[in-house]
């Protein structure tokens, strides 16, 4: 902790957080499915780096483990699953969107501002080191959520969901200096299982509807 000046440290953390945010925008702007998945993996890398950084700066060591798990699950395993799904698809890029890309970007910008506006009163609670990361985390969550609404393909929805997860994780580690280890493990386990189940279901969707276009799933209604 002594080695780096606190301001610089917080600058570094905020930088990483900002990079996460940027990748979000990139995902929103990206039509190609595989590219979305890659971007998600990249985002997860940044996330891991942030976590490691926080762990190093604060000296709370179990966050290293969290970082490691992030790398394993979110950088390697889940992107793999999604890639597998995409390979079986007949489409590689998403042409029709519920919300087109330029407006999406604008909306995401608005969401970021919103996130800062909402969290502003409680930022003061945060540690000096990771002041803005809570706002950014919320912004990422909202953007991920929005992506799920804006996109139609199951895969991109999954990506959006995973982006939300990243936002949450950023919040947990950076803003709150990480949850107790057992909690972290539990969360990661759940995320993993969730990824698997989603994988299974996308497979089944592909088999039965021979497409993962969720806008076709409108049989059940009033």
């Amino acid at each position: 902790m002594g080695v780096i000046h606190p301001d610089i440290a917080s600058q570094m953390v905020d930088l990483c957080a900002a990079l996460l945010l940027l990748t979000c925008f990139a995902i929103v702007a990206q039509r190609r499915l595989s590219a979305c998945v890659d971007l998600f993996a990249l985002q997860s890398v940044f996330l891991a780096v942030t976590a490691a950084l926080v762990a190093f700066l604060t000296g709370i060591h179990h966050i290293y483990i969290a970082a490691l798990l992030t790398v394993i699950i979110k950088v390697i395993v889940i992107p793999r699953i999604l890639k597998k799904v995409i390979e079986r698809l007949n489409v590689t890029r998403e042409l029709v969107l519920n919300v087109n890309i330029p407006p999406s970007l604008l909306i995401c910008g608005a969401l970021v501002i919103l996130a800062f506006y909402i969290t502003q009163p409680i930022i003061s609670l945060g540690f000096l080191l990771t002041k803005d990361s809570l706002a950014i985390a919320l912004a990422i969550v909202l953007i991920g959520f929005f992506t799920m609404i804006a996109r139609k393909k199951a895969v991109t929805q999954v990506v959006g969901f995973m982006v939300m997860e990243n936002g949450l994780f950023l919040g947990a580690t950076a803003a709150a200096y990480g949850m107790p280890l057992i909690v972290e493990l539990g969360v990661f386990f759940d995320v993993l299982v969730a990824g698997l189940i989603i994988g299974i279901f996308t497979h089944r969707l592909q088999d039965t509807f021979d497409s993962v276009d969720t806008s076709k799933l409108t049989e059940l209604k009033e």
Partner: protein
Amino acid sequence: MGLALIVLIAAPLVAGLLSLGTRTRRSMEWLQCAHAAVLLAMMSMVVMDVAEGSVITVGILLRADALSAFMDLMLAFVGATGLLYALGYMGEEVTRGHVLHRRYKRFFCLFNLYLFAMLLAANVDNIALMWIAIEGSTLSAALLIGFEKTKAALEAGWKYIILSFVGIALALFGTVLTYYASEHVLGVSMEALRWEELYRVASDLNPTALKLAFVFVLIGYGTKAGVAPMHTWLPDAHGEAPTPVSAMLSGLMLNLALYAVLRFKSIVDRTVGVDFTGPILLVLGLLSITIAAIFLLVQRDYKRLFAYSSIEHVGIALVGFGVGGPVGIFGGLFHMLNHALAKSTAFYAAGMVLLRRGHKTIERVTGLVRQMPLVGGSMILAALALAGMPPFGLFVSEVLIATEAYGQRPWVAYALLGLLAVAFSTLLYQVSRMALGEPMEEDIPVTDRTRRFTTSALVVNLAAMGYAGTHMPGFLRGLFIPMTRFFGVIVEIP
């Protein structure tokens, strides 16, 4: 007593793993009956002990206070009858060759894990671990809903997964925010996540943070509780899941989600006062009742029908908690209990109709009372209970909630009574169409082996429903009074 609690929670896990090893249907039946028995026994020990006024704790992980014990009561009881019913229902599917023994085993494994996750969530003394457990229940539920490999089931499962995962993620964010606020008082440690500690220091927590946290938690767990407008997955899931699962979803999962919301509400109330959470719950509750009351009218599928009625009742309970006050809180909790019993009964009956008619269309179902007196009769009784008719408990809780509401905001009482009248008419319109008249279709017989289980489940549930509505035994009293005190009010129960 700690042991009893541990066994209660562990039993489903063990049973679930064992059930994968069962060779025959008979052995499965023995296993699950034993499982049910253990559940009931352990539950009664726990409940009795807590009703005495003690709080059971196991290390820093498990903690069963009145509210948890109340959940255990519902989970274990409805879970047990659910197991019996499932034995009959899935067994019939096996005899008819719709389900292979392999998937029969998998079903029960998932079913038990589902129970396990819920029991864990109800008793764990840690906001984050509770989240994990509820997420676990979501995952197992997702697989159970998609169990029947039909297109519709798949669609329902997918919608359930996406919506409830999003919800659960938001709930996690709320949890993180709570932690974010609490660790300033309790430091970065496990303590900052324990309910007990949170209650202790609640008054020193940062109000804004907790308000934000509550919003996230409400939306998140509200999604699982089927609160409008986050309810959209619910009818699909209930309609397409195997009926025992629908019963568990309505009877237990909704209550569990409400339980989570209540836990947070109690903290937030301690921090910022009742006037913050009250209005939100009120508005969402009334919205849920409205939506449900109207959609009940246009239903063509009787399982979806009961699903919407679940939305309605969650709404009523929310209104009760929203208006607060001793009577309101009591009403809400009492409503949860009776709804769990009545709704599971309704679904058991609906499942029998599905087995014996082979379709879910309301129009084509008539003359149930003539053709299958027990099933038809219990469906009518359950529907009347759900519509809020005495001598069933839902009438009591609804009147109590209306009373409290009228005291604070008369318009809420008027709105509530009006909406309830509409829901009453729409629900009973549909059910009486099915139950009365001359049967139009011949009935697909079910084996006695099936009937043995399903009938016993129905009868036990009916009995419990009638009992809980008319008389409150001492142990419930011992639970309700501390529960209301837990929300800062005390209800007088003569």
